[in-house]
């Protein structure tokens, strides 16, 4: 098995709900707590497994805002694991999940140096490295309904932009959607072979923005005139 996530950049609305629910679940999970520093102070900071960036792609008028959630990619060739001197970082043979054994980590930060995706964050309180567990303490839990045995971020996403599944199974939802929508991985040139895939935004016709240009008729000219007169 090779478990991982697919993130649909076409529908992600950038609400950060996945990051919040991740924090909520994992703060009391196997690698919890996820320490916050000055949460109500002037410079709030803390440990998060999932972070959402916002990018502008293209130039006006053919530009688009892309919301970009990122967590551990659970790479096939995970350098964070090979550089770890203590053996705290490991990749599970059975499902490919990369984890940090909190009892072995000495907090040297070396794995975070080896990770190109910024997936690992040091918890200053515990002095250990923490990272996305793919909710390993949830996806195998027999006590919760089968439909809910998914990572917290996937369950919570209101736009259904996140999918979870086995990439080794060619008929799984994630494998199919990656095939159909030309899913891709980040920074393939570094050769980490990330498991998580991203689906590019679908191509839309650009919305015309030059209404009321030279070719505008009487109605268009009137609209222009009103727009000039009415102050917002």
């Amino acid at each position, binding site marked *: 098995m090779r478990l991982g996530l697919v993130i649909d950049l076409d529908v992600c609305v950038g609400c*950060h709900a996945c*990051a919040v629910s991740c924090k909520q679940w994992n703060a009391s999970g196997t690698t919890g707590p996820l320490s916050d520093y000055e949460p109500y102070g002037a*410079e*709030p*900071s803390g*440990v*998060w497994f999932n*972070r*959402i*960036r*916002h*990018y*502008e*792609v*293209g*130039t006006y008028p*053919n530009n688009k*805002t*892309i919301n*970009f959630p990122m967590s551990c990619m659970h790479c096939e060739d995970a*350098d964070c*694991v*090979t*550089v*770890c*001197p*203590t*053996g*705290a970082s490991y990749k599970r043979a059975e499902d490919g999940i990369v984890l940090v054994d909190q*009892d*072995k*980590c*000495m*907090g*040297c*930060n*070396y794995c*975070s*140096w*080896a*990770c*190109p*995706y*910024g997936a690992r*964050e*040091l918890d*200053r309180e*515990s*002095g*250990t490295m923490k990272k996305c567990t793919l909710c390993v303490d949830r996806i195998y839990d027999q006590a919760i309904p089968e439909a809910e045995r998914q990572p917290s971020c996937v369950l919570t996403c209101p736009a259904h932009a996140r999918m979870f599944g086995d990439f080794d199974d060619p008929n799984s939802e994630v494998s199919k959607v990656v095939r159909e929508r030309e899913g*891709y*991985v*980040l*920074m*393939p*040139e*570094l*050769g980490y072979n990330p498991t998580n895939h*991203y689906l*590019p935004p679908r191509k839309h016709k650009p919305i015309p923005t030059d209404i009321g240009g030279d070719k505008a008729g009487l109605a268009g000219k009137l609209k222009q005139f009103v727009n000039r007169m009415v102050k917002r």
Partner: protein
Amino acid sequence: MHPAFSVIFFTVLSGAGLGLFALIYLADLFKLGGGLPGAYVFWTGVLAIAMVGVGLLSSTFHLANPRNAWRAFSRWRTSWLSREGVLSVAFYPFALAYLGLYWLDMWPVVRHFSGAVATLLAWLTIFSTAMIYASLKTIRHWNTPLVPAAYLSLGHFSGGMILLAAAMLAGVQALPFVMLSLFQLFVAAFVKAIYYYWIDRMGVGSTINTATGFTRAQVKLLDAGHTHGTFLTQEFGYIVPRLTATALRLISMFLAFAVPLVLLYFALEYHAPVLGIVALVSVFAGLVAERWLFFAEARHVVNLYHGAQRC
């Protein structure tokens, strides 16, 4: 990269200590300058292993959870950090045996064997320290054979300057030691000069386009998603101003190589060991600046997710 003082201190000090030990063994083996007096070999040897020890100890100060530091000896099959730990600890019994037998003046065969093994381990330890950085694909400024070349040559150059000062104080024939130091000075200076030239002209590696997958359009970060810094921005976000970097390069090259070059001439000309010691201080000041820059100038690809266009 954030330049952590404990790591700068550790790499400069233990590199010089290991280089010094290797040179002491070789100088004694080849009876350089007629051979250093026994007490000088012994006490510079003690200084060398003390420097390595203090350096290693200071390297544990940057650990957030040093309680588990002993586990770092376990993953030597894959991790250069673990290899460095194993090799540096393996260095100790052989180095101590060499110095102990030197003090007791017995078992010359065992002594030489211990010295040779310790020297080999010293070389491998410096190489491992450098490979910790050079093995990272995420930082192109480090991912080059010039990094182990620089660590090895700078460790031997700075250690050799200590040996030279000791030789001058001992009053043995200084010329062979000066020649050795001169040779190491040029090798180290050339390697660093090539390194600076190289990292200024690396071309394009990973960009914001490959990091996001949008390779056919201009990409710009609008919002990093957090109001204040994170572990990632603190650890990797440091950017040294270009002018500061250029000035520090010149200062470090001047202090580490130009000043000792001139001082070596006068020290030899006027038989003034004090100039050798001044040169030594200058070298270490230059190396601290060099090592600070080594970290500060390195750019991690994760910066592409915090606004950088290329790394």
